């Protein structure tokens, strides 16, 4: 029953069946449906022709009075559908069959691919020109409607097209996808046939195929998402260092691994300095504990030296100034939270403020403290004048506007990045393959064919590199050929450096 209701999928198989089974159980179900008007359509399949002849007779009007009219109408339905579908399907199939070819032809078009690459390059350049990831107000201010850049470029463009987050904007990703499909289409239409031809002629390789394929390999790297980034709780040790929050949670949580049942404990965070006072390296002493509180691993991380444990990698990515611990007129210690101040460039600057006097008034004045690193704190008085520099732990008091301040400690925070990425070997393998194939594609490869025709030798050759030097090289080689007629057809591969 069900097969008959749905005969269009594999029409050839079901037609004989309908014919056979019809008398037994079909008639009662299908007779009310008048489908005879469709019967005149020509049948494309030979088996169904028989059916048609019987129906043709019936449609002449002779068979209507017959007892088995009802039973005959059942195959009509099935036949009608059988007939209609292959035909319509055939048309559609033709279109569908042609469609990919047309799309392929369009996609593998070289100017289109070049245009796409230019677009990608242009969008990337635009992405560096427009500040990324700011609030909409920033763009309102920077690209005002009253004074558009180049006469048309306003914040509307930026926000509508998503240029405030260029590298994840639909426009950019769409172009990348288009470029990727172009590359695949090109691989399909040009490279694979090339390889086939190359195989037949037993060439070593085709340089273009490798060069073109590598693009598709590079792009995904940009968006390889971290599989899981987990946030871990904070840990304290004494008053010395605060375990900061994990910086940059860039991924989504995925199925946690065994190693997730591990507690991370920051024992110590410290920095190395050059003699000039600049930060040379920062380290975090980390301990990993399992659920029973047993230490399973301990390592001091630094930049470029991550900790790896059970598929999770912990990176030392950043540091920050968490708080400043001070004594005010012998009271305290107080912890003043340090705020990062943005200035030009990448240099870090942190600042905090200690109110002095009436803190309830609307115009609070106080002492400002600035620091570039954990080594020295610069203090400014109420008027904003430079008051002095103190090092934490020096215990040396400084008196500003009648307030005696001792800087007890500078509490840093460590920026750790946790990541688990099982795809790393695959990506590295891709990188390696890409490097290798790029190098291979520049290997020189030449073929020389010679054909004996009577007393003359016809020599032809081709090369993938050093095309201009190749004829000279061959001429020089041919000059050395002695004037003796050889009688065998020879094939001589030759490598010429290019």
């Amino acid at each position: 029953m069900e097969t008959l209701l749905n005969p269009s999928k594999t029409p050839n198989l079901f037609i004989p069946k309908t014919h056979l089974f019809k008398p037994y159980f079909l008639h009662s179900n299908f007779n009310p449906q008048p489908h005879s008007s469709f019967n005149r359509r020509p049948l494309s399949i030979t088996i169904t022709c028989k059916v048609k002849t019987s129906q043709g007779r019936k449609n002449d009007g002779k068979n209507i009075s017959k007892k088995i009219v009802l039973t005959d109408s059942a195959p009509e339905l099935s036949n009608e559908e059988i007939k209609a579908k292959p035909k319509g399907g055939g048309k559609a199939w033709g279109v569908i069959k042609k469609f990919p070819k047309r799309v392929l032809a369009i996609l593998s078009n070289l100017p289109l691919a070049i245009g796409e690459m230019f677009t990608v390059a242009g969008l990337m350049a635009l992405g560096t020109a427009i500040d990324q990831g700011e609030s909409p107000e920033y763009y309102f201010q920077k690209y005002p409607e009253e004074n558009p850049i180049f006469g048309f470029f306003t914040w509307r463009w930026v926000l509508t097209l998503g240029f405030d987050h260029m590298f994840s904007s639909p426009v950019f990703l769409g172009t990348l996808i288009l470029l990727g499909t172009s590359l695949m289409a090109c691989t399909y239409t040009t490279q694979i046939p090339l390889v086939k031809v190359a195989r037949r002629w037993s060439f070593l390789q085709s340089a273009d195929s490798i060069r073109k394929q590598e693009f598709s390999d590079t792009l995904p790297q940009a968006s390889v998402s971290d599989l899981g980034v987990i946030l871990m709780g904070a840990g304290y040790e004494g008053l010395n260092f605060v375990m900061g929050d994990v910086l940059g949670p860039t991924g989504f949580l995925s199925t946690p691994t065994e190693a997730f049942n591990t507690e991370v404990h920051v024992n110590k965070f410290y920095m190395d300095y050059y003699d000039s006072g600049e930060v040379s390296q920062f380290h975090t002493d980390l301990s990993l504990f399992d659920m029973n509180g047993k230490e399973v691993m301990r390592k001091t991380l630094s930049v470029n030296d991550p900790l790896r444990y059970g598929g999770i990698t912990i990176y030392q990515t950043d540091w920050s100034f968490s708080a400043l611990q001070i004594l005010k007129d012998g009271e305290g210690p107080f912890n003043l939270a340090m705020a990062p101040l943005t200035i030009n460039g990448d240099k870090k600057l942190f600042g905090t403020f200690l109110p002095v006097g009436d803190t309830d008034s609307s115009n609070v004045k106080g002492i400002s403290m600035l620091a570039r690193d954990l080594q020295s704190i610069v203090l400014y008085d109420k008027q904003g004048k430079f008051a002095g520099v103190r090092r934490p732990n020096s215990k040396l008091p400084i008196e500003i506007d009648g307030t005696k301040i001792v800087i007890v400690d500078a509490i840093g925070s460590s920026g750790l990045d946790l990541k688990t990425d099982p795809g790393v070997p695959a990506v590295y393998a891709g990188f390696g393959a890409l490097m290798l194939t790029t190098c291979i594609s520049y290997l020189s490869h030449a073929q020389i064919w010679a054909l004996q025709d009577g007393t003359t030798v016809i020599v032809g050759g081709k090369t993938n590199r050093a095309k201009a030097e190749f004829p000279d090289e061959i001429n020089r080689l041919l000059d050395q050929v002695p004037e003796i007629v050889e009688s065998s057809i020879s094939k001589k591969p030759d490598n010429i450096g290019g």
Partner: protein
Amino acid sequence: MIFSTLEHILTHISFSVVSIVITIHFLTLFLLVDEVVGLYDSSEKGMIVTFFCITGLLVTRWIYSGHFPLSDLYESLIFLSWGFSLIHMVSYFKFKKRKNNLSAITAPSAIFTQGFATSGLLTKMHQSAILAPALQSQWLMMHVSMMVLGYAALLCGSLLSVALLVITFRKAIKIIGENNNFAFSFGKIQYMNERSNVLLNTYFLSSKNYYRYQLTQQLDRWSYRIISLGFIFLTIGILSGAVWANEAWGSYWNWDPKETWAFITWTIFAIYFHTRTNTNLEGVNSALVASMGFLIIWICYFGVNLLGIGLHSYGSFTLN
């Protein structure tokens, strides 16, 4: 102390030798006589001396700073200069028999980069021997050396393309001048597309044009070769950078301006290769793309540093 003196001496020797070489080049260029062939050979020897001087300079710096000499802009400029002279040397020794026009590009490039590096603009940077935390890795050697070598080669190649463009357009203007009756209606772009046909015509016109045709062909070929080489270096450099970033920060790619511009450079030269696969676009059009690449390399190398933003800001100017 002894190291800085040695460095000083080497800088000066290489700089003065390269300037002599340039002078000889100009002489050979303007005089175009056979008597200066000997002079030409001496200029080649001069380049060899320069090469060893710069190598010595880099080695000295490496020894006394204790890290690979590629941590700031000054060092990378010296390295770039070294890259130019290396390309010069390789092409000289590989094609010993023939004089090639690559040396006309590499020698001035070497002197300009070196002149810029040692000029007053960057004096403050010479002594800074500290290495930012993120740079303290063995990957520095691989990544930065590959990138700078790639830049050197790509700059050479794209300069050759610029030379090709200059010669072609000069010739185009000349032909337009000579054949007033047909050339104006064609226009330059049409001319460019039918360059090969026109060249076939001009082939018979005069031997001078034939020589020019040969020259442009040679330039085209050489720029293609050098750019191919640079492209390999750039690819390896970008990929090793991605691997390094993954080791150090845990992400391959951060869309940092320098990275983005390196990728733009890569894309532009990928376009260059694609234009070359089409014989209609070969020659002048690919040279146009390459000269675009020339500008983009400079933006990538300097422009981004001028802004001093992002993860690669340690190579930036400190003009304060």
